[in-house]
Each structure stands twice: as C-alpha cells, then as structure tokens.
C-alpha cells in the first residue's frame, strides 16, 4: 500500500495525456458538429442538429459508408486468410526459417506513402510498369483508377500487402502457444490434417484472431492514408469512405461542422460495433463459450 501514491500518480498522468491528445480533440470535434464554420478562425454559429440532418440526407454519406464497409471487410478477410496461411507455413520447420520469417514482415516496415507511390508507379495507365509489360505483349493498359471495382480492389490489395505481416506475426505467436501434445492427442484420436486444423489450431488461435480482427477492423474502417494517396476517393466518389468524406468536407469544402458531423457519426458507429463485437467474442479467455 506504500506505493499507492505512485500508482495514482501514474494513473492521473495517463488520464491527462490521453485526455489531452484523444479526449480533447474528440470533444472539440463533437462540439464542432453542432456548429457551422468555414474555418477554425471564424466564430462558429450554433445550428443544433442541422449538420447531422444535412449529412444523413446526403446519398454520398451512405455511399461512403457502404464503400468503407466493403473495403474494410474485403481487406480483413483477405488479410486474415492470407495471414493465417502464411503463419502456418512459417511455423513449420525448414532451412532458413529465421531469415524467411524476418523477410515476411518487411512490407510492414514500408511507409504507407512509399507503398502507395510504388503501386501507382506500377499501375499508372500512361507510363506505369504494368503498362510497359502489357504493351510488350501487344495489349493495352487497363485503367484501374477509372472503374469502381478495380479502384476498390487496388486499395484492398495495397492494404493486404502492407498489413498482412501484422496478422502473420500475431498468428505465428498464437501458434507457438498451442501445446504440441494437443496435435499428438488429435492424431491418436484419429484426426487428419484438416480436422487437426479445425479442432486444435483454430480454437487455439481464437483469442489472437479476435484481437487481430478487432484491430484490423478499427484500422481499416478509419483508413485514410492509403485511400487518399491512391484515389482521393475517386473515381466519382466510388472509393469515398467516411474518413475521406469528413476530410473533404472539413478541409476542401470548408464545411467544418459537416466534416465534424461525419466524423462523430463514424465514431459512434464504430464504437457500437466494437461493443457488440466484444460482447459476442470476449477477449477474456475465461468468458469464452461459457
């Protein structure tokens, strides 16, 4: 009990830091969503729920929501499936295992800007790498950025490229924690490779996957950098998501209140989804499946 003041001190410090860098802007943004303002300098004017009514009645808002959900879900599914597969491969004993494991995480080190610029350089319809390759075979270049599906696919693929190593690392750690005797017990029980995966590996990865999907979900839903760098929400708002919409409204259309309203709605939706998710899939081992 002698150290109580220290614990309290650290706690208060943490709350202060978090409050300043997270809580402050959050509350300010929520406050702003009830005002209309063209910049941070002008005195804002109270409009009540006006911004919300306006935003929610725009088809663009709902389109952006749908785009965001589509991109997030596709990316997460691919990241998890690929991540688990790669982790299973890397978990096996082979020559050069350490080197390959280390290499597999390299994409995660790439700054997003670099990854996006490389992608653009490869895919550019006029002077890109793929264009030259196609041209040498006598084919024309497909304009990936001019089509809704291919533009979304590009964003998804770049996200998968950069963040799958995160999934691999987490799953690899999870795999190490599954006792080898469980596999032996399953083999004696007569389970083949698929049954072992289904009854031993997947249940053993449950906690890891719950956290990984949660984190990837939050990050993908809030993804701004990749989308902005690759498509800026185009073509014709087909890759617009709530974060880019909020940014567009606040900083390009000088509608701070509208942008704040989008951000606040987005925040509330994400928060409620996370709460439901954690109810259904508790991270706490002891609560699982009771």
């Amino acid at each position: 009990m002698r150290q109580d003041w220290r614990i309290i001190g650290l706690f208060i410090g943490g709350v202060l830091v978090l409050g300043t860098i997270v809580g402050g802007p959050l509350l300010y943004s929520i406050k702003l969503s009830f005002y209309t303002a063209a910049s941070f300098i002008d005195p804002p004017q109270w409009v009540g729920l006006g911004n919300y009514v306006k935003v929610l009645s725009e088809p663009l808002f709902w389109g952006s929501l749908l785009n965001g959900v589509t991109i997030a879900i596709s990316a997460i599914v691919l990241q998890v499936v690929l991540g688990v597969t790669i982790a299973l491969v890397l978990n096996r004993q082979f020559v050069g295992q350490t080197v390959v494991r280390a290499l597999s995480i390299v994409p995660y080190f790439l700054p997003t800007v670099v990854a996006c610029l490389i992608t653009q350089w490869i895919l550019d319809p006029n002077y890109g790498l793929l264009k030259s390759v196609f041209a040498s075979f006598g084919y024309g270049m497909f304009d990936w950025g001019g089509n809704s599906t291919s533009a979304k696919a590009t964003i998804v693929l770049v996200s998968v490229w950069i963040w799958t190593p995160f999934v691999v690392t987490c799953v690899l750690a999870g795999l190490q924690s599954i006792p080898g005797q469980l596999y032996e017990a399953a083999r004696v029980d007569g389970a083949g490779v698929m049954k072992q995966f289904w009854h031993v590996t997947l249940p053993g990865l449950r906690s890891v996957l719950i956290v990984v999907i949660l984190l990837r979900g939050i990050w993908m839903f809030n993804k701004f950098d990749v989308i902005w760098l690759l498509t800026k929400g185009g073509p014709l708002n087909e890759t617009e998501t709530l974060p880019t919409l909020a940014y567009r409204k606040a900083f390009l259309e000088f509608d701070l209140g509208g942008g704040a309203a989008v951000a606040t709605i987005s925040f509330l939706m994400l928060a409620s989804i996370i709460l439901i998710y954690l109810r259904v899939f508790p991270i706490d081992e002891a609560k699982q499946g009771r």
Partner: protein
Amino acid sequence: MARVTLQNVAKSFGGDRGPWAVQDFSLDIADGELVVFVGPSGCGKSTTLRMLAGLDDVTSGKILIDGRDVTALPPKDRNIAMVFQNYALYPQKTVFENMAFGLRVRRTPQHEIDRRVRSAASSLGLEALLERKPRQLSGGQMQRVALGRALVRDPDVFLLDEPLSNLDAKLRVRTREEIATLHARLGATMIFVTHDQVEAMTLGDRIVIMRDGFIQQAGSPLDLYDRPANAFVATFIGSPEMNLIDGGLMRDGGALVMRSGGLSVNLPAQSFSGAERDVTLGIRPEHIERAETSTAFELVVGLVEQIGAQTYVLGKIDGNKIRAVFARDDALRAGDRIFVNLSQEKLHLFSRESGKTLRRTSTKGENGNGRELHGQAQLRRAELQG
C-alpha cells in the same frame, strides 16, 4: 485387447549416426498385461512409447500389434489410445466432447457416442462434469477425463505417458489405484511409462527398466527387487536405495571375504565363486538388522529420520556410508553407536567393471564360473517361457 511385440526397435534422432535414443529394444507384451517402462529421464522410455503410438518414427526394427505389423502405420490406424502427462485435453471442448472426439472422427453414430461416453464417465465419476471445460477442472479431474477419452475408444492397447507426474502426492496414489482397478476390470493391455519406481513396483505386472536407450532388465517387480541384473537396477528399485560398497574379493581359507578399508564382510562360503576381484557389495537398507553382540558391525549413527512406522538411519560402518531402515526406535540419536548384522542371504555382489550382478551359485558346479551374465535376450526368453 492385444498382444504387443517389439522386435529390435531402435530410434535415432540423427539418422544412422545417432545419437540413439533407444537401441535393440525387444519385448513381447502379453494380451491383458500391464507393463511399466521405468528409468531416469532420457533413458528412452517415453520415446519407445511414442514409437508404439506412432508419434515418432522407428529408425529400425518392427512393432507388431496382435501379429499385425504397424511399424509404418500412422497413429490413427493402430487402434491405440494414449494418455499424456499434461492431459492434452482440447481446451475449447467440454468434457463430453473431449471424450467423444475420437469417436466423432471415426463417424460413430450419435447414440453409440452417448452410450460410451456416459458409461466411461460413470466408471470414472465424471458424470457431473460432462458439460464443463477443462480449465474448470482440477488436475485430478483432468487426468480422469484423459483416461476417459482413452476408455471410450475401446482400444487394443492403452499407452500411458507419465500420467501421474503432474498430480500431487495423495492424488497420485489414488489415481494409481484407480488405474490398477481399471486394468483389472478391463483386462486390457496397458503400457505405462514413469520415472517413479514406486509407481512401477505397485502397478506393473512386469517392469522394464531402461537406461541410456537400453533395456537393463525386464521382469516382475519382486524379481527385479530380489534378483537385479546389475547395480543400476539394484539401486533404482527399492527405496531408500541399496547401499553399495566397493571392495576387493578374496578367499581366506575356505571362506569368501569382501574387504573395503577396515570393513570385511564374510560371504556365504559357496557363493559368488568367480575370478572377479574388484567387486561392489550391495545390501538394501531394510536388510540391515540390529544386533546385540559386539561381534557384529558397528554403525555410527549420523542422521536419524523418523517416518512413523520405521526409523531411517544414515550412518557409517568403518568409514563406509550406510543407509539402514529399522523398526521404529524413538531413542536413536545422532552419534549413537549401534551394532548391526548384514543379512547374509540378502547380500548382492556386482562386478565393479561391468556393474553386472555376480550370481550366487545355488547348485555347485552348475555354472562353470558361478557367474551368470544377464544378457537381455537370454532373460527375455526365460520370461516368455515363464
């Protein structure tokens, strides 16, 4: 239920060059027999069991279950069940599902699964726990579930890999008794691995003692206790362990005498005839008897341990460290000098060079040099006939 035969089984984890975990392991296990593999860690007992289960490959040799060569078969095709030291229960499955899994994999009909799991659960006292998850169970309960998982499968052979090691002392004794009862009721072939000689002695119809990958001796518990093949077996079986005194063997007229420093022990005149000079004398602590007369050996008491029914003494006879077990003696104190006899009939003699037992010549002249080398193959054959 089945007969299990191992023929010259060997296991190396580094190809033909070794190191060898198990070598030249040959054993015939009768239908319904409970055989215990025992030995210090690293002796190859678990590896042998894992080869039987099909979890480890056999480097050379053959394994037969009921005459069927299973050497190359995967575990699932051997109809064996295994109980692991750490229970290895599926953590996300209920007790019921843990026991049912092997049957589900084999597509057993649901009503049959129900029947078998419930019958196994009732015989192990697990009925109330069927819907629990492993983490809600105590160690003893988990071990019973692991046993139940093996039971429902109705396997040809039960393999138990140190199943009691993670239990506390009391529970270990109780579970040991349960396993013995289970074996008596099922009449199933069981192979039990342990490093604990008490478990081996109490459970086994037959004990196989291993060291460094080799079988040292195989035989009934009392056979190993009474007639150990070498000094290793002699000290491994029995607790507290056998006293060993290095010395020289010489004839003094007609008598045979073992001398070690100031200590000289007369051996039965006709016994241990042989050319061996450097020998080790073995005497179990419980075969050292209190004596009244001063013609006996003088034991200087160093440490007295009271365990209730008996009194353990650690002391010295002529400078040789000796452990002795006496009937309870409340008056014994460190520093006391008492007289003891070494029970002549219970003396063991080992070659100091090879560690092998120098046999008593029961009938004179039957054995040319009075020495019976306990080759494993020889011993095994004798046992199979017996």
